[in-house]
C-alpha cells in the first residue's frame, strides 16, 4: 500500500479494530516501515475519531492509548446476545476500590481505618482478579503490609486517561477547626 494519508488512515483503523488492547501512538508508528511520525499519526487518529462520531462504535483515547469500543447505547443489544452479565460490585468492594483509587498507595490497615470495619481478603482478591489493583510495594513497618495501587487496566476499563480524570472527591464542607470553635 502506498502511504497516502488515506491509506495510512485505513491501516490505523484496521490495526486498532484488530487490537483488543489499547494502542499508544508510539506503538502504532512501529507498524509502518516508514515512520509517519507522531504528529501525522495523531492527526489521522483525530480524523478517524471524527469519522466514527456517528456510529455505534467510537474511537477513544485512554490511559493505555487509543481503542475502539462500543457506545453504551448499544449495550442492551449486546447484553441480549451475552450468556451472562457481569455482576455489580457490592458497596464494600466499591468503597475499597474508591479508597485505593483516591488514596493510593494504601495498606489494608489504611482501608480499614477509613471504612471503620475489617476488610475481608475476598474484597481485595476480587479487585486483584479483575486486574484493577495490585501490590506496588510494602510499607516498612512491622509486618511489612502490602501497599495497593490501581493499575493502568483500571483506567482503561473505565475509559480514563489518567487518575486525574476520576470524579473529584467532594470538598470537605468547611475547614473544620473544632478546637478554635471550642476556644
Amino acid at each position: 500500500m502506498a502511504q497516502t494519508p488515506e491509506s495510512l488512515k485505513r491501516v490505523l483503523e484496521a490495526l486498532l479494530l484488530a487490537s483488543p488492547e489499547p494502542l499508544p501512538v508510539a506503538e502504532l508508528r512501529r507498524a509502518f516501515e516508514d515512520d509517519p511520525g507522531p504528529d501525522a499519526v495523531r492527526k489521522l487518529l483525530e480524523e478517524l475519531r471524527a469519522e466514527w462520531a456517528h456510529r455505534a462504535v467510537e474511537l477513544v483515547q485512554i490511559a493505555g492509548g487509543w481503542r475502539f469500543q462500543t457506545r453504551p447505547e448499544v449495550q442492551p443489544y449486546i447484553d441480549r446476545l451475552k450468556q451472562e452479565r457481569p455482576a455489580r460490585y457490592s458497596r464494600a468492594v466499591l468503597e475499597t476500590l474508591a479508597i485505593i483509587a483516591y488514596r493510593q498507595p494504601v495498606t489494608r490497615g489504611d482501608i480499614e481505618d477509613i471504612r471503620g470495619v475489617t476488610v475481608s481478603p475476598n474484597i481485595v482478591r476480587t479487585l486483584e482478579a479483575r486486574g484493577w489493583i495490585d501490590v506496588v510495594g510494602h510499607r516498612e513497618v512491622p509486618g511489612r503490609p502490602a501497599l495497593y495501587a490501581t493499575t493502568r487496566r483500571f483506567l482503561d476499563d473505565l475509559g480514563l486517561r489518567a487518575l486525574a480524570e476520576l470524579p473529584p472527591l467532594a470538598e470537605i464542607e468547611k475547614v473544620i477547626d473544632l478546637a478554635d470553635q471550642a476556644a
Partner: protein
Amino acid sequence: MNVIPEPALHCARLRGEPIGALPKDLYIPPDALEVFLETFEGPLDLLLYLIRKADLDILDIPMAALTVQYLEYVEAMRTRNLELAADYLLMAAMLIEIKSRMLLPRPPGFEREEGDPRAELVRRLLEYERIKQAAARLDALPVLGRDFERVSVRIALEAVEQPPEVNLNDLQFAWLALMRRARMRQPHRIRREELSVREHMSLILRQLEPGCHREFVTLFGPAAGAPVLVVGLLAALELVKERLVEMAQREALAPIHLSLAHGADA
C-alpha cells in the same frame, strides 16, 4: 421486647425494595433486622445515617443524643443474637469515651492544646462520607464489559513468534559476569536499605509486565537525573538479589534490560 427506632426502617431494603415502617409493637422477624443492619457498611456508616436522619450538624454533634441512639442499635443487635461485630463495639466504646471527656470540666488554658474531643470522630466521619460518595460516582462511570465492549476484529493470519537473538558478545559477557560474581561471592554485611531504594523497587516492579522486557533507563522518564538513576539501579540490583527481577545487558555500556523473574508473580 426491644423496639427498633421506627424511622430507621425506611432505609432498609429487602431484595432492593424498601421495607416500610413497621408498627412499633409489631414483632420484627430477626432476618428483617439482619437485612436492615446489613445495609450498613459498618459503624461509621450507621453513625452517618443517624446524623443525617436526625438532621444533626456534623460539625457540632450532640454526643449524648447520638451515643444513646447508637447504643440502642447495638443493644438491638445484641438481643437478636446477631453476631455483634467487634467494629461496632469498638465504636460504642469510643463514643462513650468522647461523651465523658466532654463532660469533664477543663481547666482554663488547656482547651487549645487538647482541642475538641469530637474532632477525630468528625474527621473520620467526613472522610468516610467522601469515600462513600466517591464509590457511588465510580460505580456510575461506564465500565468495560458492563456498559461497553472492546472491539475484536479477527486477524486473517497469525504472525510467527520470533525467538530472541544471542551473539558471541552475550555469551562472553555472561561468562564475565559469572566469574566476577564467583570472585565476589564472599560473606558481606547487608546494608540497611534506604526507603528511596524500596520505593524505586516498587516503581520498577509495577512497570514490568510478565513476559516483557524493559530497558532500564526508560523506567524513569527522560527527566530523571543521575541521582534517580543511581537509586533506580540500586533498586534494580536489590530486586535481582531477591530474585524478583532479571537483568540482561548485551555488553558493557549497552542498555540494561529488566524483566520479571519467572515465578515472581506467582
